[in-house]
């Protein structure tokens, strides 16, 4: 697997000098947007009255190019359409559910239909909003955005990758949906790598591929270590470029591995597991697929992100248990050991 070692344009945000901790993903991403906006006068930024303790520096720098449009997400997308038609590059910001679902028809009939460079930032991937409850859980945003062929979908896994993805996406002419997490944990071994239409691999295990969406990749990396203790060699594949999908990389990854486990803080339908299933089926790969995703609407069950990841079997321990329970990782000879 050569592309793990490819040279990539990457910017790793500096940790806070006071606390030594990395900024949460949305702060890292917004920091990158600010750098882009300082270079490109076409950038304007709209928020639907969200972004406390995140957007203040950006608002100060952009001045008249920053507009809080109020709690009105439909209008925010409509405004962005009018702004972009005039040659500007609008970023719009809200919580993932509000940014994606409330104005969905405007997204379709506005930036998508008119092929305009509107950048939609949906903050809070999956269960990130924890105690805020189910209205704040973005569990179908990837599915509805994937339904639109011309939407670029980027779901970074950690702060450094979020910043890299922001910079890597400036040349995209059409609309982009950024699914941005709230946590700050770095995914070990990812090192801020991002390339449109590609997978980012961590490890080279040939028994199982753990394919992960967003910041849940950190749990996947821990799960890889757990199954290694049981003699199972795993590769973690981070899918941050959801659309364009990393189809060729997925084929290369899965054509000689007996088992793929997809892990996503998202419903089953239309998300990463669906994407991987499509690739396996359409290319005739002999790879068993098990999907770990949020099974049903989590009514009446809120809590911390750690609790919710446990409850929905998205934590490292549950991922490892799912892998161990699958017979497929040893069920057929590995291509590398096959004799001609």
């Amino acid at each position, binding site marked *: 697997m050569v592309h793990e070692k490819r040279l990539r344009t990457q910017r790793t945000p500096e940790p806070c000098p006071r606390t030594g901790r990395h900024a949460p993903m949305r702060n890292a991403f917004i920091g990158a947007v600010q750098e882009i906006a300082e270079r490109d006068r076409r950038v*304007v930024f709209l928020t639907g009255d969200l972004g406390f303790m995140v957007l203040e520096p950006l608002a100060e720098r952009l001045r*008249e*190019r920053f*507009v809080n*449009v*109020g709690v*009105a997400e*439909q*209008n925010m*997308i*409509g*405004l*962005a*359409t*009018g*702004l*972009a*038609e*005039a*040659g*500007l590059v609008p970023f719009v910001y809200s919580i993932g559910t509000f940014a994606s679902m409330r104005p969905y*028809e*405007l997204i379709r*009939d*506005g930036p998508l*239909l*008119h092929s305009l460079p509107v950048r939609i930032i949906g903050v809070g991937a999956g269960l990130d909003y924890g105690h805020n409850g189910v209205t704040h859980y973005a569990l179908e945003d990837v599915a509805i955005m994937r339904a639109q062929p011309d939407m670029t979908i980027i779901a970074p896994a950690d702060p450094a990758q979020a910043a890299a993805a922001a910079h890597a996406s400036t040349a995209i002419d059409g609309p982009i949906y950024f699914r941005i997490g709230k946590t700050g944990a770095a995914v070990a071994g990812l090192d801020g790598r991002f390339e449109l239409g590609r997978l980012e691999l961590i490890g080279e295990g040939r028994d199982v591929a753990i394919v992960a969406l967003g910041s849940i990749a950190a749990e996947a990396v821990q799960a890889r270590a757990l199954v290694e203790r049981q003699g199972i060699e795993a590769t973690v594949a981070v899918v941050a470029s959801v659309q364009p999908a990393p189809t060729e990389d997925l084929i290369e990854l899965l054509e000689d591995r007996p088992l793929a486990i997809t892990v996503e803080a998202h419903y089953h339908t239309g998300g990463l597991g669906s994407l991987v299933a499509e690739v396996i089926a359409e290319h005739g790969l002999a790879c068993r697929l098990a999907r770990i995703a949020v099974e049903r609407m989590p009514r009446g069950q809120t809590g911390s992100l750690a609790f919710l990841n446990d409850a929905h079997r998205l934590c490292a321990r549950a991922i490892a248990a799912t892998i161990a329970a699958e017979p497929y990782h040893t069920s057929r000879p590995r291509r590398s050991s096959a004799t001609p």
Partner: protein
Amino acid sequence: MSLQQHPLSRQIRRSVLTQSKRANVGHIGSALSVVDLLSALYGGVLDARSADDPERDRFVLSKGHAALALYCTLNATGRLSDEALASFCVDGSALATHPEHVVSWVDFSTGSLGLGLSFAVGAALAARIQVSRRRAFALLSDAECNEGSVWEAVMLAAHHRLGNVIALVDVNGQQALGYTHDVLDMAPLSRRWEAFGWDVHEVDGHDVDGLVHTMESLPEIHAKPHVLLARTTFGKGVSYMENTIAWHYMPMSDEQYAQALSELGDGP
């Protein structure tokens, strides 16, 4: 000059009838309702000399179901060829019963009600950011104001004092399945727009010269956004269509078509 005699409007109305008859489609009453508003806009109010001039005024036909009236207006003012107009509703054509921006001079695609004013307010905000004098016009239906998204755009335009936004509301008192006062009464519409901070003008939507005069006298810079509540007659110019719900969707028979053309007359 009454609208019935306005030569540009008469030409557009005849064209609307001809094309809708050829294509055997409806939305005729809605199209006839807005002809004089479009006649005023494209007859002189819009600063739009070239379709690809970034400094042109923007226009959004937010009530997209009147697209045929827009095509016929563009044709009558030399902006859309006869060949292009004749492709209305032909298989494979871009000219549908709702407009798409891929057609020259159509700035924004519409068809779903409640989107267009947001587009226009965004265009006006862009003009302010880019320090341009261009304006943004949107033509809405009265029943379109049922859509909550309209009022989101209304509030933002007023808050930012976007005096370069001019909304025209085609107040014909009808919607798809009934009269607006029976379906969802928006009265008093003028007080609603005023209460949201807009500069409101109640006008005769069939008086082209009056419409031009009103629109040309609107202050633009850091003023309230403007709305013309244009009283119109649904199906204007064709007696059996006027104020009749059925003509939201019905196509014309041969006899009805002949009568409609005859009522419009063909004089200048």
